[in-house]
């Protein structure tokens, strides 16, 4: 039964992720005074890409994005089955690294610049993700998601600073402005498309589906901060996820893309102030 539920969650995750991406595109269009595409547009895009020809640059090039998808699925299944959050975070990072290797595999200058920027982004957001895991352990004495979400007091009460820091770096993971310098959804130039520049057809579809999984993974991290043992808190947690996602859409539309230096320093400053001060205060009182 448990395994069946897990499989169901993992199968449902990309559909929910794709739907959220579609809603994102409609809301973005409305914010810009446009009508916008249908809500199911991301699914149309992916189905089209599956039907198109895939141009193969070299044999390793495609392999890396498929491995990246496998790790995204693995991370989602760990998180949604209530597994170890540390393992999930490291598996997610491994998936990102494979994606970066995919960028390096094609000798295109655009995708190599994209890969370098992606590595800088990983360096920028990773400390905060790890601090969030440490903070959740401090608050709930467990790294397991199923124990963290079954406590009597939500983790947000202990970790408001860590949560704000996490919301800040989620912008990297959702590939939203101002931190979408390695691979933007609004790419009108090759350099902005970064790693995906040399991918086409089915491989590009795989990258898009991986992104849907990543949307679910990041929102699960938000969920963990709000959920407690009472069922009503899970509803609140879902509302919090929706609000955070909406906030990210507003941020995406309100800010221009930053240089990597600014993205990097701002992420580390937020990590240093919000995350570490929160943890220091928490360790002082416990």
């Amino acid at each position: 039964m448990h395994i069946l539920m897990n499989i169901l969650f993992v199968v449902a995750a990309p559909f929910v992720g794709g739907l959220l991406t579609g809603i994102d595109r409609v809301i973005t269009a409305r914010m810009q005074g446009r009508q916008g595409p249908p809500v199911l547009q991301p699914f149309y895009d992916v189905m089209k890409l599956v039907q198109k020809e895939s141009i193969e640059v070299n044999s390793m090039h495609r392999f890396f994005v498929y491995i990246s998808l496998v790790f995204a699925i693995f991370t989602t299944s760990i998180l949604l089955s209530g597994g170890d959050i540390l393992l999930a975070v490291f598996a997610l990072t491994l998936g990102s690294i494979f994606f970066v290797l995919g960028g390096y595999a094609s000798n295109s200058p655009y995708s190599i610049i994209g890969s370098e920027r992606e590595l800088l982004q990983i360096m920028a957001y990773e400390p905060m993700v790890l601090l969030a895991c440490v903070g959740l352990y401090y608050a709930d004495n467990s790294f397991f998601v199923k124990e963290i979400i079954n406590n009597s007091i939500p983790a947000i009460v202990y970790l408001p600073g860590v949560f704000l820091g996490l919301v800040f770096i989620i912008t990297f993971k959702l590939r939203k402005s101002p931190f979408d310098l390695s691979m933007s959804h609004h790419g009108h130039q090759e350099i902005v498309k970064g790693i995906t520049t040399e991918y086409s057809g089915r491989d590009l579809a795989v990258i898009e589906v991986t992104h849907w999984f990543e949307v679910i993974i990041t929102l699960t991290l938000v969920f963990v901060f709000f959920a407690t043992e009472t069922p009503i808190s899970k509803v609140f947690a879902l509302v919090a996820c929706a609000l955070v996602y909406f906030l990210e859409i507003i941020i995406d539309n309100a800010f221009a893309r930053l240089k990597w230096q600014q993205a990097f320093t701002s992420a580390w400053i937020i990590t240093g102030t919000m995350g570490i001060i929160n943890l220091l205060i928490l360790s002082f009182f416990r």
Partner: protein
Amino acid sequence: MKFVTKSPWILHYDGTSCNGCDIEVLACLTPLYDVERFGIINTGNPKHADILLITGSVNEQNIPVVKQLYDQMAEPKVVVAIGICATSGGIFAECYNVVGGVDKVLPVDVYVPGCAARPESIIDGVVKALDILAQKQKYARKKTGKNRINQETAKI
């Protein structure tokens, strides 16, 4: 189902254009016309694109560029010539450096006349191109058909 007609991604290339048609192509993306309603996205990348929009005539210097852009696009793909310069060379047809319309170099599927082409007619041309794209998709899915398209490309 032909999903390619629901999400056509566009690559826009400016040949020897006076920029009039380019402005009109970009006007299609503004809130007034909003082509993203049809799932149309302006990509800057030939490998992601389904439709190649070319404005302006072809000259000796941009022939290799246009050919390379076309070759880098994944099948199925269509070419839309925007404006009278891309169709026949327009008022620049007599210039010493101008070769003529885009069809001198690439197999053009849809011609959109006008100087400059209106955004409405550009959208109309792209929608016409979608039908051709759907036909080409049917064609490309058969193995033999795919080879034939490649041979045709090679001839050019």
